[in-house]
């Protein structure tokens, strides 16, 4: 019964793996590469996510909702925007690491537009990436991209905030609040 539940929960993943196995059967070389990359992805995820989720658990328990609302919630104004950019830019790791962080931020009362700003900053303003980009593509390239991104992110967040609709927004917050 428990195994059946597990299979049901992971059905899409298992389907993909089945697909991979079929490929491996007909093209062993390609199949090997797929499994190598998939294993590599899991290794990367498992190295990055544990400290993120650990920090999120601690944040959830120790940081009061009032504090987050004060710094990032409705009425946090420019301070909230700047803080959201800094939080995203200070991040490390792929964008998927930002999703659970944003979820806890929402649960604690962060304003919707600030969550989007944080998400976009994480995707493209990451300082570690910036340093790497600078050394590979030059300071002019990296710095221009970084600076143009800031007004761009603000514009994107503003547009999403206006277009998403009150119902979608409420549903998003409701879902995060429902998490234990």
């Amino acid at each position, binding site marked *: 019964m428990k195994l059946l539940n597990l299979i049901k929960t992971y059905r899409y993943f298992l389907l993909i*793996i089945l697909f991979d196995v079929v490929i491996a059967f007909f093209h062993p070389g*390609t199949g090997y590469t797929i499994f190598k990359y998939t294993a590599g992805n899991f290794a990367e*995820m498992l190295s990055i996510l*544990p400290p993120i989720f650990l920090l999120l658990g601690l944040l959830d328990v120790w940081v009061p909702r009032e504090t987050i609302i004060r710094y990032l919630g409705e009425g946090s104004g420019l301070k909230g925007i700047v803080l959201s950019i800094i939080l995203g830019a200070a991040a490390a790791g792929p964008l998927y690491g930002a999703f659970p962080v944003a979820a806890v931020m929402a649960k604690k009362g962060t304003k919707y537009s600030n969550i989007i700003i944080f998400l976009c900053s994480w995707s493209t303003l990451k300082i570690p990436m910036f340093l790497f980009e600078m050394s590979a593509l030059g300071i002019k390239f990296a710095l221009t991209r970084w600076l143009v991104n800031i007004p761009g992110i603000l514009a994107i967040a503003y547009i999403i905030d206006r277009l998403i609709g009150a119902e979608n927004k409420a549903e998003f917050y409701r879902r995060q609040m429902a998490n234990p």
Partner: protein
Amino acid sequence: MFTLLLYLLALGGLLISFWKDRHKTRLALMKGWKAFTNILPDFAVVLALIGIMLTYLSPHTIAALVGKNSGFPGMLASSIVGSVTLIPGFVAFPLAKSLLDRGAGIMQMAVFVSTLMMVGVVTAPLESRYFGKKETILRNSLSYVFSFIVAIIIGMVVGA
């Protein structure tokens, strides 16, 4: 390096938390674990998809797709490749650099780098799980359009 910092931060926090309040620490660990296992099925799907994507869109293939064309068709091609692929920066930046050295246009590389970082087609199911369909579509399509603006500005600044 940054991952190590993250671990130090998390472990330090855990120790302080444990020292201050054992019960709360237990709760924090449980919450973190629950949040992780809740999303793991979707994560597994995305990671498996990326495995297939990387196999068929190797850096070699990407170079061929992105490097050949110039002008607007070249930008369009590199933006599509950038949106669909998910390769880490330490692979992407040197790749863009080597393509630039081999004659690829600066705007093509800029739109490639920008879409690569901002637009995630493979991670869309995961984003949708957290933020809903509408946000996922809006954020990714706006970021896609914005990447062209970034590329044009970079082209003007760096290309000049």
